[in-house]
């Protein structure tokens, strides 16, 4: 029961929040926080007394047997982590958009629905339901960018929609084909995983799935939508986009290819890693050349997620563990960076690095929090990002030294763009915009502290995180015939 609550609670919570302003000022904000907190509690409750087998919780119920669709939700360590992140980010979004007043009821409802759709993706194991939630996820994000964005938000929202919708087609085609050709029409992932397709068929199906995941991940050359989406999205939008939607791509890659198409994945893995490697370097170099702060962080996300792609395609215990940790670490660090840049833009009205600077003098709290996430951005040991990248590099050393070398290059280039970012914002003499700059308000500071704690704690004591991901990693590696390291 706990699992379906994960999806229904935010969904109906969103509906309730729509009508919340009638009861009083800011009730929609408190309502959303309550909904998210409740979802988190339910998650923790169901994760704690989950059984010790492969799945913490498994829910199976018929929805439309004549068409072979069923409600099949399963949760293990990995999806539990993802669900926790989605709820936490939900709360963070509410905190930082405390001053959003333009249609704020709808705004908070959309946040709830994004979380609901993402939770659906993290839980669904019936392929059709998974594809359904995958497509559903685009709509609230589209609304978030389209209605509450800055500048030319329509262009960015449309680009986001076209990219993801077209990619979704690949996933839908593969799912429908698998469902139709199964002996008796079913979309159950576990049944289909024993379907025993021949390798070429597996490769084609895998490409269908991979197309959807890679666009959402995003990995070059499918990444063109991310910078625009981030620059035009409101702060909460960027956080949900970076913290949540990117993770669904990574989660998808982590979960389904090894489960459904092991041989296909083995065949495609080298190309996947090559693409990931290219993405890492390309993202990093592009990040150095950016003028707009949010666009810079968007390109860093591309670099980090390409590392996740390399990790997932590595097919080795370390690589997958690294990919899992990097996913979670990136969720924390990039959301915090977007939050800070959002706060910055809210006060100075600009994100252009050439017009910012000197915040150390005027806003020390902002500067110190920026320093923490500057360290996370360049994967300083002691932050979870370093752990993720180090594990992926160890995995790559076991697989192919060239990819390991390229991943190491990313460590170096990350310093270049990180120092450029902090140099332009925190160092230097205060310019006209940043002269008067009141420091972070409590409702902005608390999320920062939460995210910072998350990065540092998981960086110093990764045992909790790795323990959570272990069952998912072992299961992902089993079909690939890769025993434990």
């Amino acid at each position, binding site marked *: 029961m706990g699992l379906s609550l994960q999806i229904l609670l935010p969904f109906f919570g969103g509906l309730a929040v729509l009508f919340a302003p009638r009861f009083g000022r800011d009730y929609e904000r408190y309502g959303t926080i309550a909904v998210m907190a409740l979802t988190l509690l339910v998650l923790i409750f169901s994760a704690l007394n989950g059984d010790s087998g492969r799945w913490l919780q498994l829910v199976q119920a018929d*929805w*439309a*047997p*004549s068409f072979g669709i069923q409600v099949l939700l399963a949760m293990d360590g990995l999806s539990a982590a993802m669900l926790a992140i989605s709820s936490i980010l939900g709360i963070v979004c509410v905190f930082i958009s405390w001053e959003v007043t333009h249609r704020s009821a709808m705004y908070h409802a959309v946040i709830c629905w994004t979380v609901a759709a993402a939770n659906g993706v993290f839980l669904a194991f019936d392929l059709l339901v998974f594809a359904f939630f995958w497509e559903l996820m685009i709509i609230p994000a589209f609304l978030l960018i389209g209605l509450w964005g800055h500048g030319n938000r329509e262009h960015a929202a449309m680009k986001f929609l076209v990219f993801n919708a077209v990619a979704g087609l690949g996933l839908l085609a593969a799912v429908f084909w698998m469902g139709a050709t199964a002996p008796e029409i079913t979309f159950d992932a576990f049944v289909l995983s024993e379907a025993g397709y021949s390798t070429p068929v597996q490769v084609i199906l895998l490409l269908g799935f991979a197309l959807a995941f890679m666009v959402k991940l995003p990995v070059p050359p499918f990444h063109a939508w991310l910078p625009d989406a981030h620059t035009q999205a409101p702060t909460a939008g960027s956080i949900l986009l970076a913290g949540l939607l990117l993770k669904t791509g990574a989660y998808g890659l982590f979960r389904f290819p090894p489960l459904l198409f092991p041989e296909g994945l083995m065949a495609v893995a080298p190309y996947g890693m090559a693409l990931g490697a290219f993405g890492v370097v390309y993202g990093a170099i592009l990040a150095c050349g950016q003028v707009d702060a949010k666009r810079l962080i968007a390109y860093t996300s591309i670099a980090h997620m390409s590392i996740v792609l390399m990790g997932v395609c590595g097919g080795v215990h370390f690589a997958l563990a690294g990919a899992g940790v990097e996913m979670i670490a990136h969720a924390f660090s990039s959301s915090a960076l977007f939050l800070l840049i959002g706060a910055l833009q809210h006060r100075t009205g600009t994100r252009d690095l050439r017009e910012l600077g000197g915040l150390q003098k005027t806003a020390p709290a902002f500067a110190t929090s920026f320093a923490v996430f500057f360290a996370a951005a360049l994967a300083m040991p002691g932050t979870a990002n370093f752990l993720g990248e180090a594990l992926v590099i160890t995995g790559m050393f076991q697989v192919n030294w060239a990819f390991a070398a390229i991943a190491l290059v990313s460590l170096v280039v990350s310093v270049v763009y990180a120092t450029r970012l902090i140099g332009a914002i925190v160092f230097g003499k205060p310019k006209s915009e940043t002269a008067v700059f009141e420091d972070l308000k409590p409702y902005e500071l608390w999320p920062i502290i939460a995210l910072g704690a998350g990065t540092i704690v998981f960086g110093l004591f990764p045992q909790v995180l790795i323990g959570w991901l272990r069952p998912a990693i072992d299961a992902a590696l089993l079909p690939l015939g890769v025993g434990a390291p």
Partner: protein
Amino acid sequence: MTDGSIWSVAPLVLLGLAAILAMVLAPIQPTPRVRIAAALPMALAVIILLARLGAPEAPVSMLLADDGMARLGSALAAAAGLGILSFTRTICTGREGPALVAIAAAGGVALASANHGATLFLGLELTTLPMVALALMPRTEAAVEAGYKLFLIAGVGAGALLMGLVFGFGASGSLRLDAWSVDGPVAAIGLAFVLVGLSVKFALVPFHMWSPDLFAGAPAPVGAIAGSISKVAVAIAALRIGLSLPAPEIWTLGLLLAGGAAVILGNLAALRQDNLLRMLGYSSIAHSGYIALVLSVGGELMGETVLVYVASYAPAIVAAFAVAGLMGTGTRLEDLRGLAWSRPLAGVALGVALLSMAGLPPAVGFVAKIYLFSTLAGEAAWGPLVIAAIGSALGFAYYLRFAVRIFTAPRQPAPRATLNRADAVAMAASIALLITLGLYPEPLTSLVAASLP
């Protein structure tokens, strides 16, 4: 008369009782109370019918069959009758309105379970003549003209049906439908005449001429009866004939020709209609065409498809007419602008009904469309499949034209008219039925599968 057979004839008796009650009370009681008096026995009949769906067959006589088809058909007819009762207002159907609707419902039940020539003929007449009477009630020139057209064409149709029965009786020596022999010219001609008789009531081309004028001119309940009760009953009668006769060529060919023409002509004509009722009339012809195509194609899914299609069409047409009745007979496209905002329940009811008739996902029409296309594709009947596809495409055009209009912003804030309770209940019930069955079609599909041999 075992108690099983008593239960089997109980619905017909109850409906007759309802009619008599309504006629007796009509002069002395105000119409709303008469309506309730008629509604109670009908509701009881519906409950009995639904309860007995699984019960063993106990036909009371050779005249009336008591198989699953008959029960489901009768249940639908009686339920439709109940729905129509809710919007038979005194202003448009006089004091005798409820009585006539009850008679029509009884006729529908008889026709649905007709197993013998006589009950077939009687059922047909019992549904037609009350419609004519109802059409005349407002005594306006348009209504009388519509009534007259229906009267004459239906009369000729009845004559053709009788000729068919004569030839059938002549050829096979018995009026029982399942006893008809098919070989020999006399039987074939008989079947042709019967097909013509049914096609008139089913409003297939070229016997459909009365239908658009009746829908436009006559008050709303008449169109509702024509669209729901008579269509359901005739479809099931035709299904029974089709199932009992071993693959007669004239029957399938006739249905194919008439059905195909009905689909094309019905949709084309509806494309440019501005009057809501006339559009519903033509679209009703098109839907009869789809059912005729399915009957002509046959195959093991035929029974299920016809039942699902009819079960999904009846509530939609009743809801549409409930709203039309509220809005008056002359409602043009512009009058619907912003209906969803000015009269939310009516707007949503009409919107959902149109979506269901168009066959779009949230409503049960989508499931019916799936059955329709899977039957046609299953039997590799490429001709009817193409015709049905073109028909549905055109259908999208004119249904959505009206549906979108409902949800646009209202030009001037129209006054919020008060719905009487019965109307509201009928609309709410039909919306619920259409949406829940659309999202979770399991009960309908299992019910239909159980009721077929």
